[in-house]
């Protein structure tokens, strides 16, 4: 599995705010290395999140997302003790899933 993400989730007034820091090179495929060869595209294409057993968020990303992306989003509902799970899949088929407890 790829490098771990860092997930923080906090519930307040019926809204759970999730903040994720993902570890990924996010190569656009436009850069060239020192020898002039194109550095192949390597970036996250899908991101999804679950709150306990329910799918709550899905996203499709492209090469414009930054390296080591920071992603924050809000979920309706959720309370302390719930589990938030975030998954990403990149264009090489690599994937990573991490969980965090809502505080």
């Amino acid at each position: 599995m790829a490098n771990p993400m860092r997930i923080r989730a906090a519930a307040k007034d019926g809204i759970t705010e999730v903040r994720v820091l993902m570890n990924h090179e996010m190569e656009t495929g436009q850069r060239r290395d020192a020898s002039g060869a194109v550095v192949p595209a390597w970036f996250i294409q899908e991101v999804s999140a679950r709150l306990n057993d329910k799918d709550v968020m899905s996203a499709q990303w492209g090469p414009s997302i930054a390296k080591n992306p920071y992603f924050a989003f809000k979920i309706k509902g959720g309370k302390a003790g719930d589990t938030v799970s975030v998954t990403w899949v990149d264009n090489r088929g690599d994937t990573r899933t991490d969980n965090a407890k809502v505080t």
Partner: protein
Amino acid sequence: MAARTKVAVAAAACVAIALGFAGVAQEKDDAAKGIEAYRQALKDGNPAELFEMAGEELWLKPAGPRNASLEKCDLGLGPGVVEGAYARLPRYFADTDRVQDLESRLLTCMETLQGIDTRAHVEARFGTPKKDELVALATYVAGMSKDRPVDVAASHPKERAMFELGRRMFFYQAGPHDFSCATCHAQEGRRIRMQDLPYIPAKEGAAAGWTSWPAYRVSAGQMWSMQWRINDCFRQQRFPEPVYASDMTVALSMFMAATANGSTMATPGIKR
């Protein structure tokens, strides 16, 4: 022209010039405010945390011919004590009989605990795997001193000597441009593009520099340790490249840390 009109014109001119100056000052404030707002936006979700995690893994992982982890490494507060250690570095170590900064001490621990020949690590270029390991370790250790007060008093005679050496180096002009660290860092209120240049010979400026590295540089997507920062400063001045964790680099760190004594660690930082 009538005297009164002359006075009125002169007064108007004065006001216009004053407004003109105020306009320039206003521009500077707006730029500074914009930079500050950008920095605040960056603070949440510092990718440095990914390197802290990687560093912690390396700290715990057995490696080298002795297949040992770094868990017994003495960073100055006793074997294995990581919390608060960075805030008290550089310092004198009796076992090596010299003043060491964090990265030099990490090399010592890799040699003595893990049996690793660290020459390859010293010679590796920044941004390549062997250096990445040291940067990750440094980020982890530095992060464990976050919000602690800098406690570097340079009381031991060798610490004092390093401080003086660092100060001399700081003001030493060399290289084809006749630069010294002081060229950029001993003038009040200056910046290079988006970087405010801290006035390092005084506590506040030294703290601005010393307490915010290791830091993640967003524009480069790289995690930089203080050794990397110093290495790049030498490059920017067109000085010869310093040997990684050599005495000169430790001396400069000592100068900065001791001048920043009492300020609060904000590591790991995040930069443009």
